[in-house]
């Protein structure tokens, strides 16, 4: 039993991906299909927060702004300048990463609420600039007619699925790599990390850059899925929702992040219940999870796996 469970645990990601691969052929209705795609696209930005918050301990409530940058870059390049969508798909995350790196600089000096407020301000500034820079972004009229990189619905779905899988694996690898360990050292104790030779500034910048790159990618995919962009999609409420997803998923847990993104985005629509009150329920669940996270952690772990606290359980996926 233990052995089977171990195999299961190790390959849980693969199993999920295989299950998801069945969706296009299971005859899922078009709207639910679309919403699962959105869940997959959200998974990527949630994973970006796993790296930034889960690994490095830096809280951002402005990630919708980075999503916007990725989305609009893709949209503007393909629609206004007629650039090949694949090239645009590669450029968008880079632009987002560059901007995100800027956001990394305040993180050198600021921490806690000060940093969070900065990220909120950043998100809002991006949104207002997009709203007013009509020439470039279409402003409130939005930017429409965006074509996806892969026009076929099924093709796009599988592309997304593969991307999510690759990004998940990469994130897990990152976690165990030297960079990942540096991130975690910073999260644990910045001063101690510095003392031990970790260039805190450099790694914080790196964390923001990588995270923003992924957010930008997620944004470009968003543009592909919705074919239309409007500043309303990139508000503080969205940033807060991504935070909700990453915490519900376990903050540093890759599989949890993917599950959480899919669950929060798609579940009510697919199961057709709780659609109106979903945010109240989710935030309530989040409140409870946070409140009881300590006691749950200790009790559940001890009971289920019979191992003493402090062993390397569930660490570093």
């Amino acid at each position, binding site marked *: 039993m233990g052995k089977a469970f171990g195999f299961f645990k190790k390959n849980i990601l693969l199993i999920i991906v295989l299950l998801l691969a069945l969706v296009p052929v299971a005859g899922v*209705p078009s709207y*639910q299909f679309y919403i699962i795609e959105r869940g997959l696209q959200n998974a990527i930005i949630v994973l970006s927060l796993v790296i930034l918050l889960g690994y490095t301990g830096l809280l951002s409530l402005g990630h919708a702004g980075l999503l916007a940058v990725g989305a609009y870059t893709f949209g503007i390049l393909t629609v206004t300048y007629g650039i090949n969508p694949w090239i645009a798909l590669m450029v968008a995350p880079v632009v987002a990463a560059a901007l995100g790196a800027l956001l990394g600089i305040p993180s050198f000096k600021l921490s806690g609420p000060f940093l969070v407020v900065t990220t909120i301000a950043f998100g809002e500034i991006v949104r207002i600039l997009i709203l007013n820079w009509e020439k470039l972004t279409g402003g409130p*009229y939005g930017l429409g007619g965006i074509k996806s990189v892969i026009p076929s619905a099924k093709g796009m779905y599988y592309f997304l699925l593969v991307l999510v899988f690759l990004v998940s694996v990469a994130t897990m690898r990152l976690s165990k790599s030297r960079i990942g360990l540096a991130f975690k050292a910073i999260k644990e104790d910045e001063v101690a990390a510095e003392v031990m030779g970790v260039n805190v500034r450099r790694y914080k910048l790196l964390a923001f850059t990588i995270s923003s790159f992924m957010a930008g990618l997620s944004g470009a995919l968003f543009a592909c899925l919705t074919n239309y962009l409007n500043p309303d999609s990139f508000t503080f409420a969205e940033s807060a929702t991504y935070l909700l997803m990453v915490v519900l998923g376990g903050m540093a*847990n890759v599989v*949890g992040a993917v*599950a959480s993104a899919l669950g929060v985005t798609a*579940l009510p629509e697919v199961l057709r219940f709780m659609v109106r009150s979903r945010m109240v329920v989710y935030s309530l669940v989040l409140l409870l999870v946070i409140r009881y996270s300590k006691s749950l952690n200790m009790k559940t772990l001890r009971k289920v796996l019979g191992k003493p606290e402090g062993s390397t359980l*569930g660490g570093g996926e």
Partner: protein
Amino acid sequence: MKKKSVVLLLLVTMIAMVLAGCSGGEKAGGDKQAGGDEQVLRIAHLAPLTGSAASYGVQIVQAAKMAVEEINEAGGFTGPNGETIKIEYTEIDETSNSASAIDAARKAVSLDPHAMLGPNRSGGVLAAHSVWQEAKIPTITDGTSQDTTRQGNPYTFRMQISSEYWMPILVKTAVEKYDVKKPAVIYGLNDYSKANWVATEATMPEYELEPVSVQTYNDGDQDFSAQLIAIRDSGADAIFVYGYTPECGKIIRQRTELGMGDVLVFTERASTDPAAVELAGAENFEEVVTSTTLSPGDPDPKVQAFVKKFEEKYNQTISGTHVNHYDSVYILKSIVEKVGLDREKIREELANLKDYEGALAVYGSDEEGNLVHHMATQVFRNGKWELIMKEEYDY
């Protein structure tokens, strides 16, 4: 964190999704033509049930539902082959938000309707129209931005008149009835309000008018003192206020608070909403002029009959401009009576609609798919709307 519980939750989620997906299997597939012996006319209505348009979203749905209920309670209607047809009406929340309008449109399309109504806002129409174009479902939209029917989408129709017509009559009223010489404008930075301003600006040279002050604001702004004070300083004798209901209400109220109660206000449909009057305070609304497609103060007996019926049924004051979908439902019924439940035929009939006498107006389709061609202005006096002037347009 608690890995095992996460894993279990995940598994349940996955299985549930796949199962739910399978159970919904029969509904999949987009190009199913509704056959001749189907007995249900499915109408999906994208309406703003939440968000800043929610105050009249409810009324739009009520108006449409009133028609649906009237028809169904009479036992449905008869199709071209003698079959009885009833209407299945579903409202879907498009949240007043352009991006969610796309999601809502997709949801509506997955219900496999024969025709759709809405979305309400031009932004939503522009955002989502390719969804119904791809699905080949004729859609009667709201929205007043002139661009919405110019996207080359043969499935888009409009139960509203474009801003190009809303504004000229408003300016005409301002000049002819109120002798306005120094207009100022404040508009919101959204596609709807901007389009209104653009249409107004185009009309002004005709009356040799030039705006003495042009102010803008962001949706969601609470405070307009800066803009209003600038307008006051410019010596304007009238303000054209464009925006959505919450902002219009706030602006109208704030202008009196800043001592500008004597400056005339010309605005349009967002302000015909009773919620705008409530927000501004009825006493601050006196003498506000709006342009509208339907004035509750219109002495025409047909209009009065409708207003009375609506207010009796729903026990609330009617808003001026969002209730035309009552006629949309009847138009669809009369079309289906003739050609049956065939989307392409419905679309064609809509495109060729001529002189259809509805409860609220006479409708006909121009080459862009606009169905409404009349306009009115009204003024708010002693707590009630009074009609000022009405015009029909050629098309």
